[in-house]
């Protein structure tokens, strides 16, 4: 974590934020802060209120109640100041397919008032970063989905924003492209000290974030570093393959006080700290142990423990009228 200095104020501060669309209470009073320079992930099922929140932070939607500041500017009262300080990458592409990649970025820079004398160099820098400078004169229509997403990230950086918002940045991309997008996000953070705020409903992606907030049904149910959140869930899953499972289970029960069951062909049980438990296991078990595996809880387990439901179930539960406030 970066050393915190006096001038290091939070990049985003949200207080009591609420949004209603008619009868639908999309965001139900949330509070959180994003530190300058961190990658902050908003995790939750579709319809949890992530997109509405990001929309408010980007000044595209007015909150019903509460307040939010981005880069020190109020999202309602200082709309244009916020807009100059943020870069945006939406789920749907917002590039002009007919124009060349470079022309798209030049227009963006002009719209944001990037001075003419630095704009071309700036465009070259960001396009090189995402590996698209060689394709600068190609029409965007000829780009693949992954290339378009990379170009949009580059475009979001042309005006050197303090905060980059990415709404589901890897949705619909193949695994290889997803990991290259993540490499770019990491590079941004390391080289440019930019704050990245992203939403995702991929659990494995949230692991890349410095901190995540888990959102469900319009509220934040948990917030913290992925490791801390998983530690809070507490239980590691241990699987042991032995010569005699029946003996192993009874020994675990009598000597170590652990309920174990055979699952996936191995004796399986949950304990607070798997690594510390394993040496005791070897000391107590009188039979041969062929293999041991310890699995950390995933963010899936975190979501389950905080909401009592899995992400998948939550998604089928909520089918909100999202279209109303969006587009």
């Amino acid at each position, binding site marked *: 974590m970066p050393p915190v*200095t006096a001038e290091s104020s939070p990049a985003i501060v949200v207080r009591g934020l609420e949004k209603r669309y008619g009868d639908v209470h999309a965001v139900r009073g949330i509070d959180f802060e994003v530190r300058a320079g961190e990658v902050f992930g908003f995790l939750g099922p579709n319809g949890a209120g992530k997109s509405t929140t990001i929309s408010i932070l980007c000044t595209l939607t007015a909150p019903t109640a509460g307040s939010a500041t981005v880069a020190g500017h109020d999202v309602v009262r200082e709309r244009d*100041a916020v807009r100059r300080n943020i870069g945006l990458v939406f789920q749907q592409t917002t590039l002009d397919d007919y124009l060349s990649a470079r*022309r798209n970025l030049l*227009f963006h820079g*002009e719209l944001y008032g990037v*001075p003419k004398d*630095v704009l071309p160099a700036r465009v070259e820098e960001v396009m090189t970063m995402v590996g698209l400078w060689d394709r600068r004169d190609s029409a965007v229509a000829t780009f693949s989905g992954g290339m378009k997403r990379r170009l949009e990230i580059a475009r979001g950086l042309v*005006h050197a924003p303090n905060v980059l918002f990415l709404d589901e940045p890897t949705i619909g991309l193949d695994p290889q492209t997803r990991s290259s997008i993540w490499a770019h996000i990491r590079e941004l953070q390391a080289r440019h*000290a930019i704050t990245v705020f992203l939403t995702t409903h991929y659990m494995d992606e949230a692991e890349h974030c410095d901190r995540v907030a888990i959102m469900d049904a319009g509220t934040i149910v948990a917030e913290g570093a992925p490791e801390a959140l998983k530690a809070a869930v507490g239980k590691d899953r241990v699987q042991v393959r032995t010569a005699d499972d029946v003996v192993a289970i009874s020994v675990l029960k009598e000597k170590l006080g652990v309920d174990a069951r055979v699952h996936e062909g191995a004796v399986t049980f949950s304990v607070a700290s798997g690594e510390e438990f394993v040496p005791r296991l070897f000391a107590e078990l009188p039979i041969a142990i062929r293999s041991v595996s310890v699995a950390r809880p995933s963010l899936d387990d975190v979501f389950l423990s905080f909401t009592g439901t899995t992400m998948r179930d939550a998604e089928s539960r909520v089918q909100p009228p999202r279209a109303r406030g969006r587009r």
Partner: protein
Amino acid sequence: MTAADRAPRTSTRPPAPRLPPSGLASDLRAIKVVWHRELLRFVKDRPRLMAGLAQPVLYLFVMGTGLSAMVPSTSGVPFRTFLFPGVLCMAILFSCFFAAGSLVWDRELGFMREMMVAPVRRGAILLGKCLGGTTVGTIQGMLLMVIGAIGGVPMSLELVVTIFLQLLVICFAITAFGVALATRVRSIQAFMALMQMVLLPMFFASGALYPLSGLPPWLEALTRLDPLSYAVAPLRHAVLGASGKAALAPMVTWGSFVVPVWLDLVVVAAYALVALGVAHRRFARDEA
């Protein structure tokens, strides 16, 4: 802000560009970007240019020639010369509406969001579109002047300059009108349908194809309300002027008052302002 306290930095990054605050300058920049984009797309879209010219050529040469047999002379000039301003009007009508329709395209294809989230005023985006349509329409109109000359319509330098200046006002108004429609619909299909519904009646009631005198009262009333009537009249006045027949040009009349060319253009400009106001009211409220 906190660039200095962030841990490993491996590159020397050029200083971040300092962005100017919002104001007139930023609005002008936005207008320029939207206008420039409209122009680039027009230049790249050859089929659009061709289609925009093919239809007027058809009207002028096929219909104009065919009807000349029936109507040898209208307002003292050959029918084809009489028809030319009307055809010119039709050409810019389609061209400008097409430019306005790109607003709907932009929304469907997502680019609209890019403009809506920029730190610029919405009005600047609309104005840029209107100026884009004005430029595209005027270029198309001037190309049609060349075709007209080839087709035997008498030309003069004065006529070309007059038509050019009139087209600036007229194209701006037509684009503004199209933009007002475009802000009301969400799909390109709906816009196309609306365009068919509005455009052809406007065209047929404008006197583009026939003189405005001696019409039945209901049609006369319609022609006086049609903003396009006030666009066709000055164009025709100018074209007939090049044949020395300006005095015979059929003008719009309000009762016994003959509307002069300058007032025609004022009416057109007034329509434009109303359309722009309507469009802006709607567009400013839109969530991106």
